[in-house]
Each structure stands twice: as structure tokens, then as C-alpha cells.
């Protein structure tokens, strides 16, 4: 482990991007992710990189498409309303099979909403980031250290699968400060023979494009893309377990909600209730097999979310509704308390056996 520094989540992810070889950042300020831009405005010039404050979020995501087409690592960041604006570009990135890293430090919505933390863009990130059939790889950090490590991993996955990786953080993880080790290891390099880098008269033109004039061809592109998605679902799902081996009640929570849930689980255990946590680190692919496995012995599940209940649908799908799934949630910028989670665990413990 290298020297520790004390960083904000937003700063840690910005520094990790530089360490991962990203030298192009395009963005537009919005709370609670502004520190990403502020940090990179200072750092990029020192590493001969490009920091550009675009005229809008839409302009920024289109600049990302340009740099990604040239085969370079590139990043943009925003918070919920700004991510909505980028949606068209996210669809084009998928249609062009381009690797890119997009950060969403979520705040309460819908609409302008507020600046306090939220997880209510779960549906957007995992299902509806734009028009057409596509997925993004979605990573959910739960600590400042993970803000750094998942950025590193996110760039890697993006290059490996020629896809957009979205870091789906929340305002709390973006704003909080924790010690971080920035010892990230080696940067993996990927050949990008498809990149638009100039033929130098030595090869045919590369074309990066999402338009197909033939429906038969466009269908094949979609089929191929989904073969890749199937491979990712098989190989890349990540999660962390906490006290699940003997758990009657399994909490599923990501990001800041998982931190709250851990405190509640410890409290529940002290009261004699066997509670445990599955924390999805990848939201797409969702760690379905871990949940299916847990459903064999658990009585009930509790989904803890900073939304009106979005991930709960993936939990129910993963376990095929074989166990009751309760929702413990706050919305609009509020965070559930450990006491609220504990109350829900106790309720799940009461009703769990009835299923």
C-alpha cells in the first residue's frame, strides 16, 4: 500500500482517472460533483492533459464521443439532471461501440430536484440511459477508496468490452472525505485497431458510426452486442457479502445505503436477528447468482435505497419472487437511518416465515 492521502470522493475519482491514463475530460459544473471538474482543472494541465469546460452537458458528451473514436481514454462527469442531458450521447456511444467513462454523482430528483444525495437514477443507469437496445457497465462505489479503484476498473472494462462504464455514485460518497491509497497498480493497455487515427495510406478507413442503412445489418449489430452483454453478465458481476453465511434476513444495498445497512445489521445481530448484507458493486451486470444463492436459506430480503424503490425490482427478478422483499427507503435527498433499517429488518424477521 502506498502513502495515504485524505480525499473527497470526487477528488479521488478524478485523480484515479489521471492514473488510469485519461488525459481528456469534458464537463460542466453541477453540485454535488463539481469537485471533479475543479480538481481536473488544476491537475490536467500539469500532466499535459485536456480539461475543457464545455458550453453544456450535451456538448461535453459529444466531445467524449470524438475522443473515444480516436481510441483515447476519456471521461465526463455530472449529476442527475446533467446526466439526463447526456442521454442521447450515451446511446450514440453504445451504437458506435465506444469505450468511455461517465460519472453520475446522483442528487435528488426528478426535474431540478435538489443537491442532496440520492440513488434515484438506478433505472436510468441500468435500463434507460437512452434510446435503443443497449446497456452500460454500472459500478457503484461505497467508499472514497472505491471511488478511485472503480474508476480504474471502469476504464479497464470499458476498453475490454468497447462500452460505456458509468460510475453511479451518490452525493454523499462524492462529498465525504476518507483516507485513500492511490496505489492502483498497472494500467492495462488494449489495442484499438478500430480507432479513427488516420490511415497514413497504410490501411483502409476506419468508420465509427451508429447508423446502418440496412435493417438486416443493424439487427446483426444488435445481436453481436448482446452476445457481448451475455458474456459480461456471466463474468463481470461483482458484489461484497457481510455476515450472509447464516443470514435469515438479507439486506441488499449499494453506495451510502450499504454503509447505513452495515450499522443496522450489527445492531440486529446484537438483538439476536441473523441479518447479513449483499452489496452489489456492479449494478449492471446485477449479481443475480449471489442473490439466488442467498434465497435458498434466507427468509426474507430488504432493499435499502435512496429512491422510491428501483433496485428492488432486480432483487425480485433475481430470486424469482421466491421470498418476500421489503423496501426501506428515503427519497428527495434524505438518507435512511440505521434505526429505520433495523425496524425493517425486525419486520422482515416477523413476516419472513409466513411466505
Amino acid at each position, binding site marked *: 500500500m502506498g502513502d*495515504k*492521502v*485524505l*480525499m*473527497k470522493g470526487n*477528488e479521488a475519482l478524478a*485523480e484515479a482517472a489521471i492514473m488510469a491514463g485519461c488525459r481528456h475530460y469534458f464537463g460542466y459544473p453541477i*453540485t*454535488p460533483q463539481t*469537485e471533479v471538474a475543479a*480538481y481536473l482543472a*488544476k491537475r490536467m494541465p500539469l500532466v499535459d492533459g485536456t480539461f475543457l469546460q464545455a458550453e453544456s452537458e450535451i456538448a461535453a458528451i459529444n466531445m467524449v464521443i470524438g475522443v473515444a473514436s480516436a481510441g483515447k481514454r476519456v471521461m465526463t462527469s455530472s449529476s442527475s439532471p446533467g446526466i439526463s442531458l447526456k442521454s442521447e450521447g450515451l446511446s450514440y456511444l453504445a451504437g458506435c461501440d465506444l469505450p468511455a467513462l461517465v460519472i453520475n454523482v446522483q442528487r*435528488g430528483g426528478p426535474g431540478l*430536484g*435538489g*443537491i*442532496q444525495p440520492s440513488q434515484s437514477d438506478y433505472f436510468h443507469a441500468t435500463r434507460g440511459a437512452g434510446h435503443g437496445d443497449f446497456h452500460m457497465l454500472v459500478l457503484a462505489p*461505497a*467508499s472514497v477508496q472505491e471511488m478511485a479503484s472503480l474508476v480504474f476498473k471502469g476504464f479497464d472494462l470499458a476498453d475490454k468490452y468497447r462500452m460505456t462504464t458509468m460510475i453511479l455514485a451518490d*452525493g*454523499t460518497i462524492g*462529498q*465525504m*472525505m*476518507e*483516507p485513500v491509497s492511490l496505489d492502483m497498480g498497472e494500467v492495462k493497455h488494449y489495442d484499438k485497431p478500430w480507432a479513427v487515427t488516420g490511415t497514413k495510406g497504410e490501411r483502409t478507413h476506419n468508420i465509427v458510426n451508429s447508423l446502418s442503412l440496412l435493417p438486416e445489418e443493424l439487427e446483426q449489430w444488435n445481436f453481436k452486442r448482446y452476445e457481448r452483454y451475455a458474456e459480461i453478465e456471466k463474468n463481470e458481476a461483482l458484489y461484497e457479502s457481510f455476515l450472509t453465511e447464516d443470514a435469515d434476513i438479507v439486506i441488499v444495498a449499494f453506495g*451510502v445505503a450499504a*454503509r*447505513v445497512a*452495515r*450499522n443496522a445489521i450489527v445492531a440486529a445481530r446484537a438483538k439476536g436477528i441473523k441479518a447479513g448484507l449483499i452489496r452489489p458493486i456492479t449494478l449492471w451486470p446485477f449479481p443475480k447468482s449471489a442473490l439466488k444463492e442467498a434465497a435458498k436459506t434466507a427468509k426474507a430480503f430488504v432493499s435499502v435505497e435512496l429512491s422510491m424503490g428501483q433496485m428492488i425490482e432486480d432483487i425480485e427478478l433475481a430470486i424469482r419472487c421466491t421470498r418476500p422483499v421489503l423496501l426501506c427507503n428515503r427519497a*428527495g*435527498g434524505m*438518507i435512511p*437511518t*440505521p434505526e429505520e433499517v433495523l425496524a425493517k429488518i425486525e419486520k422482515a424477521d416477523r413476516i419472513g416465515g409466513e411466505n
Partner: protein
Amino acid sequence: MKRVTLFAGHYGSGKTNLAVNYALKLAGSGLKTLIADLDIVNPYFRTRDSQTELDEAGIRIIVSPYANSNVDVPALPDEMYAVTDDKSYHCVIDVGGDDRGALALGRLSPALREENDFDMLFVVNFYRPLTRDWESALTVMREIELASGMRFTGIVNNSNLGQLTKAEDVAATDVRARELAAQSGLKLLTTTVKEELAAKTPDSIENITPIRLHFRGDWVIY
């Protein structure tokens, strides 16, 4: 002791926590105390998080009406002029981070300079990534002076790694803090440590101030 004490420094150096600690200390010694949060940068972690404790100590809090709310308006409250208008108070000013945050101080600096009864303390945490050595800390110091129109009068070494700080982490920064003092021509007034570490800190470090960490939220421990 001066009537007004300003805490300024790099973004995330721990100014708010230090300002709250200092205000509670002043009030505890019987002084009529006011704390003004002039942060126009930070959206979440603010003086208001410690409101109950400050209220109980009888400290007047001046803070933007929008702090900790759902709107992002970098507004300063008109009430902040009490700092220079009402001299019956001992004032603690929590300045926003970096030169950008210190810009807001320009509104008060002419009156503060005219009265000339203030200390402006440079708060430094050598574990922050952009102030890891005395050179970069000195650059930030000069940038803040330029933006605020005020000169620093002393240095507080507030180096920490949050809740996980150990006594040796603090001790390891002492050389840098002394060098910053020598290079800037300012006095290293004190080195802060968490209360529970005060006894474990080596004697070679002079003028230790034990402080309490004020945190918001149940999700901090992980």
C-alpha cells in the same frame, strides 16, 4: 487574543471543524461569541451541522439561509456585517476553501483591516493531495491572500486522515509545518490532534491543541 479569528486554507483542510472547536472554546471561557460561515463552495458539510451544540453554548451562528438546503446558491447573508459592526462579539470566521472560497472575504476585509484586531490563520492538512509539501501549501496561502485582500498572521497544522488518524501520522508532518512557517515568515501557532490522541503525541511537537471531530451522519463509519 484578537477580537476576530479567521480560519482559511485549502479546500478540505478542516477549517469548519476547527472553527467550531474554537468557537466552543471561546464561549466556554465566558466570551460573547459569534461564528460566521462564509463558505460559498462546499455544498454538504457545514457549520450548521453542529447547530445544536453551538446553540447550547449560546453562540450566535451566521450562515447562508441556503446552507444544507436543497438549493445551490452561493449567497452570503447580510447578517455577516455583524462581524465588523457589532464589536461586542468575539468572532470566528469559517472562510471557504482555496482562493475561490476566500474571495467572499473581500466583502469584509476593508473593515477588518481598518479595525486591525484580527488573526487570520492558515489551516493546513499535509495529507490533502494538493498540499502534500510546504511548497504547494505556500502557493495556496499566497493565492488566498491575493483573493481575499488579507494577510495571514499564523499557521495551524491540522494534518489528519479523518477518523483513522494516528498520533504518528500527525507527528510525521511536523517537519513540513515548521518549514512552511520558516518559508512564509509566519509562526506555527499550534498543531491539532484528536482529543483521544493528545497524550500519545510526541513531546517534540510544541503547542498541541486537542480537538473534537464533528461529523454528520451514521454512514461515516464503515
